[in-house]
């Protein structure tokens, strides 16, 4: 009898627990609903507002249209973005003194995606985020996690460029803050010390010339001139990504789409070739490359133990924090076989978006509108050592940009747009693992085989993503 009673109590308890939880499930759907209604309201409201603000001149003086914003904006961004955002916020506070900004920091791209997944799963998206353009914007827009920015009327502020990656179904979902160049960083102080001259006239134009330059450095006394932080996702994949944009996409701009549709494969010879080319640089990397951290890489670069590394131009501000006066040069990537194929890899980057989780979407949008204005962009870019994207914004660009900007302004090299940064989730981690395997001595064929099988694994896991990618893809 007692036993039965006990069983009954346990059963009842479990039932209440489960009910409690499914009750939770019901409440969970509520915020989504309110969010949706809120979104509709937002759109209506901001539609009205933008109608209003078209009468005023728009741009920076949006604060003068009488709306008093207050509150704190939570910004999800990278380590080096806090300084520029602080600068923009300082300007914004002149219009709206009660607004503050708070940061959540991602350490690298994988961390960014993982944390976003986590936020989406727990329904706690930060108000705004700054991420690499094109990585996930379209996917998030499709799944309804981003607010469209069309009503802010800021697209016209942008200088000419490819906006396809920040748009979804014709609407703008992200405003790019900078033009990011993917470059080869170069410690010019050390080069001068070694008696090697690199300038606009004689920068390397192809892989052979680059290897020649590395060899020259070695002969002049720098044993390992090229550096890679093998333990860091972004650093050890920076070179492969530059190679993919410059060489692989140079040969077949639709390579990734072909991989996803089964027409191409990571184990194809053109991708194996990448690791063979990377092998030529391997000789010029320190033996402890596989375990090097980004800090270690910075140390090597600043102390002159290494002279070159591949990264996006945004890494400059991190180096400037450590040594403001160093003579740094950025060279266009030069990994093609022939000099005439060389391109300048660059495109809109540092996209800022407002999420559907924004607690005060009006404020966030207004702030974004301010960032996208001439003043905002100048404040941002002069604190991040970046090239601005807003028409008319003028900043004293860092001398490290001198060669790149000259090439860009003269149009010497065709632009290799960052055609698609959209990869299946988990791909960057997978490429990192591949690169690390290669760094510790695995041969290119087997590295590529592993990448290929694991990529298939990821594709099997998210067939919907593959389907959507191919459906929206425009073949070049």
């Amino acid at each position: 009898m007692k036993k039965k009673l006990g069983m009954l109590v346990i059963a009842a308890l479990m039932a209440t627990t489960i009910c409690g939880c499914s009750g939770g499930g019901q409440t969970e759907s509520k915020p989504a609903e309110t969010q949706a209604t809120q979104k509709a309201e937002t759109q209506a409201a901001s539609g009205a507002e933008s109608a209003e603000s078209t009468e005023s001149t728009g741009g920076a003086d949006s604060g003068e249209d009488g709306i008093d914003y207050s509150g704190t904006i939570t910004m999800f961004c990278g380590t080096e973005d806090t300084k520029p955002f602080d600068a923009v916020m300082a300007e914004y506070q002149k219009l709206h003194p009660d607004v503050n900004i708070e940061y959540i920091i991602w350490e690298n791209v994988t961390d960014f995606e993982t944390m976003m997944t986590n936020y989406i799963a727990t329904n706690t998206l930060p108000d705004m985020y700054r991420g690499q353009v094109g990585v996930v914007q379209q996917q998030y827009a499709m799944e309804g996690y981003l607010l469209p920015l069309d009503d802010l009327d800021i697209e016209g502020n942008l200088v000419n460029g490819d906006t396809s990656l920040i748009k979804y179904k014709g609407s703008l979902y992200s405003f790019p803050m900078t033009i990011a160049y993917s470059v080869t960083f170069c410690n010019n102080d050390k080069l001068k010390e070694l008696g090697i001259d690199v300038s606009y006239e004689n920068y390397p134009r192809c892989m052979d010339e680059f290897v020649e330059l590395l060899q020259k450095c070695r002969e002049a006394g720098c044993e390992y001139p090229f550096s890679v932080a093998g333990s860091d996702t972004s650093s050890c994949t920076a070179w492969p990504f530059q190679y993919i944009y410059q060489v692989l996409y140079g040969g077949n701009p639709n390579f990734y789409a072909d991989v996803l549709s089964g027409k191409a494969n990571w184990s194809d010879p053109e991708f194996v070739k990448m690791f063979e080319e990377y092998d030529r640089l391997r000789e010029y990397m320190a033996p402890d490359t596989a375990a090097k951290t980004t800090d270690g890489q910075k140390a090597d670069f600043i102390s002159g133990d290494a002279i070159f590394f591949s990264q996006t131009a945004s890494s400059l501000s991190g180096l400037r924090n450590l040594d403001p006066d160093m003579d740094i040069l950025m060279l266009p990537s030069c990994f093609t076989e022939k000099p005439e194929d060389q391109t300048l890899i660059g495109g809109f980057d540092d996209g800022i978006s407002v999420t559907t989780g924004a607690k005060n979407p009006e404020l966030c949008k207004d702030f974004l509108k301010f960032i996208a204005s001439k003043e905002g962009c100048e404040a941002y870019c002069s604190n991040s050592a970046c090239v601005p994207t807003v028409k008319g914004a003028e900043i004293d660009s860092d001398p490290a940009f001198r060669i790149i900007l000259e090439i860009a302004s003269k149009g010497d090299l065709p632009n290799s747009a960052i055609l698609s940064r959209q990869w299946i989730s988990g791909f960057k981690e997978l490429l990192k693992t591949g690169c690390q395997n290669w760094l510790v001595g695995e041969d290119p064929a087997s590295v590529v085989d592993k990448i290929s099988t694991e990529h298939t694994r990821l594709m099997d896991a998210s067939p919907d993503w593959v389907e959507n990618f191919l459906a929206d893809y425009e073949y070049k």
Partner: protein
Amino acid sequence: MRAKKNEDIVMNKRSPRRVFSEVFVTLIMTVFVLIILYPFIVMLLVSLKDTKEALVSPNSIPDRLMWENYLKAWKSMNYPKVFANTVYVTAASLVGIILFSGICSYVIAWSRHKKFYNGIYLLFICGIMIPFYTALVPLTKLMTNLHLNNSLTGMILFYIGRNMPMAVFLYTGFIRSVSVEILEAGRVDGADVWKLYWKIMFPIMKPITSTILVLDALGIWNDYLFPKIMLIGKDLRTITLAQAYFKGENSGMMNLTFAAYILTIIPVILFYFAFQKNIVEGVAAGAVKG
């Protein structure tokens, strides 16, 4: 006094071989201690350098002692807030664990409905071995559904639940070993379960309570993955999160990072030295009982 004298005599009687072996043991133990202390020394040295020096030549004695690094680290990580959060979570969880598991174990051990509570006891015991990772995503979902994510209260409730099995196990074992007479005496006086527990049982259980406190306090204080998944707001960060994020947020500044690390380990080490005896005894007792 006499024992001491005895020892002295023994000392004098020592053969050279024994003296040698003792010196040898002391030497080896000193080497062990040096290995243990080495990372602390590295942290201290690096934390006092300037950024460039910390990166380029980390192994030397600092050129100039930069004590201001500690001030910067203190501000940058918002130390008081982080510390307060961690203390709050740890303390509240511990109070919850002791409060709920103690009385629960008492009922389990002494109730007349033996079979029923034995069943419940077994249910608890099964929970000891469940790894946190098994239910990573379901737990995330559950916390979200209950609106307990991104909140310290949610963390506390979870910690209480998760540490319940071990605490019930230890308490029940202890209570069962307490002699019956003590409680029977109370029962005759007509005290009810509640009074009996707080007046008589709880004071007796002091040693095992301190074991549980010691075992769970460090576990909660040093937990990393759960807060990493649960806490998003910067002002909710716990010490382990601050440690992990500091490195990323001050990328390249190993001097500040290590200054922050030293700041974060000072409270734990002070706590350890203050309660060293209880901690060591608690660990030993907990292990032997487990």
